[in-house]
């Protein structure tokens, strides 16, 4: 039987949680609005892929622009806002003191989202740059950087002012993500937008940035949530915890080197791709340790939060192995430039990152608001939709990629025929994306329902039933 998240145990909720209520709700609310928007755009984008004339007359929504807007809304809208909220909350809890300087979070969030809206309007009206994960026009980039810095301030204060000298794996990942992103982001801005490198060096910097943004920012944010939630909910210590530190440093030191795998066979020095292939294999150590450390998530014992976390972890580890497999030149020759790569990206973003964030959101919102989620069936429906949608989307995109890769490499098949062969797969992927969007709409509605309920009735702590098994 499923134990759904209920009102948090009053004893467990302290000022650490409640004092950060509004700033964190602001971050999460914006995150979910961006998630829904990016879901709608992803759906339209997939429709364009199998029915190219869809919205073709609208210059703001060509396939290329829509794809860039969708990616931007997902990464900088959903992932950044939700990841920051979760990281701040974790650092406060593990630091043992309420977050300080929360006004900075509110101001930063408002500026961040304002800059993002401006940037997306810029992409739609023709100011897009051609760099993956950095399509935003030059004029909003400095504002985003400053806004990120201000949101991260309380997190840094929580880390430096922590009550206990000892630190936990969740803290390492959260602090690494908070610190490393502004750095990556500012270097990428300089070398790609403000003072661009020459020739193919642009592609190399972009490859380094995209991989860095995943392995040094989004993945650590998601892992911070996982490393906090699993021991907290199962009430058991992390097995083989000694390896966690080594695994953390492996991700940080090796991860960013794997970006060159997308440039295999391209007009770049061959050693870049070779190092990426070797790094992908080395990184498997990290994935194995994560799986071993957090295997407790797979014995969820009825916890809904852990079900989300378990799926996210499975997707994360599977994604790591898939990266290593497709980095091999013999495989890359078939999967490169196809929907297969998109399937891998969706496995990482929707499968691993989003699922871990959903888990964290279901866990933390009742604690910061002191209110139970209004509807248990809604949470179950979201889980079912997120699970089905992600699996269908990823499997069909990978299937489409296999067909496309085979056809592209068989010169006897006319290029014009390939779209027809891939179409059934893309239709199924569209269905997967629609299910995923439905699930995300449920989550967004649920959060706003909870927040609205709060404004009507003041927070009432309901000691029973306890939300999850917890050991503080």
């Amino acid at each position: 039987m499923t134990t759904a998240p209920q009102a948090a145990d009053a004893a467990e909720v302290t000022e650490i949680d409640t004092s950060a209520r509004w700033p964190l709700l602001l971050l999460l609310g914006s995150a979910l609005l961006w998630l829904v928007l990016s879901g709608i755009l992803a759906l339209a984008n997939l429709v364009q892929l199998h029915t190219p004339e869809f919205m073709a007359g609208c210059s703001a929504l060509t396939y290329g622009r829509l794809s860039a807007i969708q990616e931007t809304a997902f990464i900088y809208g959903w992932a950044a806002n939700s990841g920051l909220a979760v990281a701040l909350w974790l650092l406060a809890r593990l630091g043992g003191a309420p977050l300080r300087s929360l006004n900075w979070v509110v101001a930063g969030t408002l500026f961040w989202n304002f800059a993002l809206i401006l940037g997306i309007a810029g992409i739609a009206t023709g100011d897009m740059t051609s760099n993956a994960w950095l399509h935003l026009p030059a004029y909003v980039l400095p504002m985003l950087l400053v806004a990120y810095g201000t949101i991260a301030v309380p997190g840094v204060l929580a880390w430096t002012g922590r009550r206990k000298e000892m630190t936990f794996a969740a803290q390492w990942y959260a602090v690494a993500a908070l610190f490393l992103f502004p750095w990556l982001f500012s270097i990428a801005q300089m070398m790609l937008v403000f003072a661009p490198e020459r020739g193919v060096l642009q592609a190399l910097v972009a490859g380094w940035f995209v991989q860095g943004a995943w392995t040094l920012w989004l993945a650590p944010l998601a892992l911070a949530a996982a490393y906090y939630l699993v021991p907290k909910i199962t009430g058991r210590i992390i097995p083989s915890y000694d390896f966690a530190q080594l695994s953390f440093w492996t991700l940080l030191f090796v991860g960013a080197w794997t970006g060159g795998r997308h440039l295999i066979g391209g007009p770049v020095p061959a050693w870049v791709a070779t190092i990426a292939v070797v790094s992908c294999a080395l990184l498997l150590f990290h994935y194995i340790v994560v799986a071993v450390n957090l295997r407790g998530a797979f014995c969820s014992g009825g916890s809904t939060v852990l079900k989300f976390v378990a799926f996210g972890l499975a997707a994360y580890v599977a994604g790591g192995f898939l990266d290593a497999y497709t980095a091999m030149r013999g495989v890359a020759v078939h999967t490169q430039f196809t929907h297969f790569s998109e399937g891998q990206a969706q496995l990482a973003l929707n499968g691993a990152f989003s699922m871990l964030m959903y888990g964290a959101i279901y866990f933390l919102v009742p604690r910061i608001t002191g209110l139970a989620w209004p509807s248990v069936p809604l949470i179950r429906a979201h889980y079912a939709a997120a699970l089905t949608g992600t699996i269908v989307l990823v499997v069909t995109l990978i299937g489409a990629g296999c067909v496309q890769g085979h056809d592209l490499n068989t010169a006897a098949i006319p290029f014009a025929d390939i779209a027809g062969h891939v179409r059934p797969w893309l239709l199924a992927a569209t269905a997967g994306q629609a299910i995923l969007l439905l699930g995300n709409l449920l989550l967004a509605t649920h959060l706003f329902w909870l927040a609205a309920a709060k404004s009507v009735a003041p927070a009432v702590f309901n000691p029973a039933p306890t939300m999850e098994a917890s050991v503080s």
Partner: protein
Amino acid sequence: MKNGFTFFLGLFLAVALAWTGIVMGSHVQLGHLAPYFDENEGKAFPERMPGIAAQGQLVYQDLGCAACHTQQVRRPDFGSDKARGWGDRQSVARDYVSQAHVQLGESRVGPDLATFGARPLAVDATRLTQYLYEPHGGMPAYRFLFEERKITGERSADALKAAAPAGYEIIPTHRAVSLVAYLQSLNNVYEYPEARPVEPAATKEGESK
């Protein structure tokens, strides 16, 4: 991990090493790359892009054409790029030295365009302009790059042979003209010394015997 200083040093090194290795390493190797001067032809390759083509590159970029088209040919024994007629040799770094916005692309929903300018469709600007106006297989029509204008006096020489309401004609905008010029300028076919196709090892052995 009790020592905060060591922790931050680790974070610093994590970014710095990857950046130094990948970005600076490639920079040292390719940063000085210059166009290749061919004494027989008396000019340097790759040739500079004409101004209108450079404007077209911005149109290509802001419409997001790179979401469906790559501009990188893989070597003949790696994939079927050569067999598909996308280029006889692999693309090399020198092909891109004079481009302000390199758009290698990551997806081949549409064909590769690195040598597009050499293909029959691109040779005739009128035909290529017409191509952008009409949908073709997987590629939609880009009608917003054209305007419907009332015919005053004679028909414009630039008008497309497309169905327009009586008394009107379809004229490509400056954006369409520059995009066409850019697509025509994509012509990475000059054989640099470093770009000669690598023969498969088996053939070489056979030749030596």
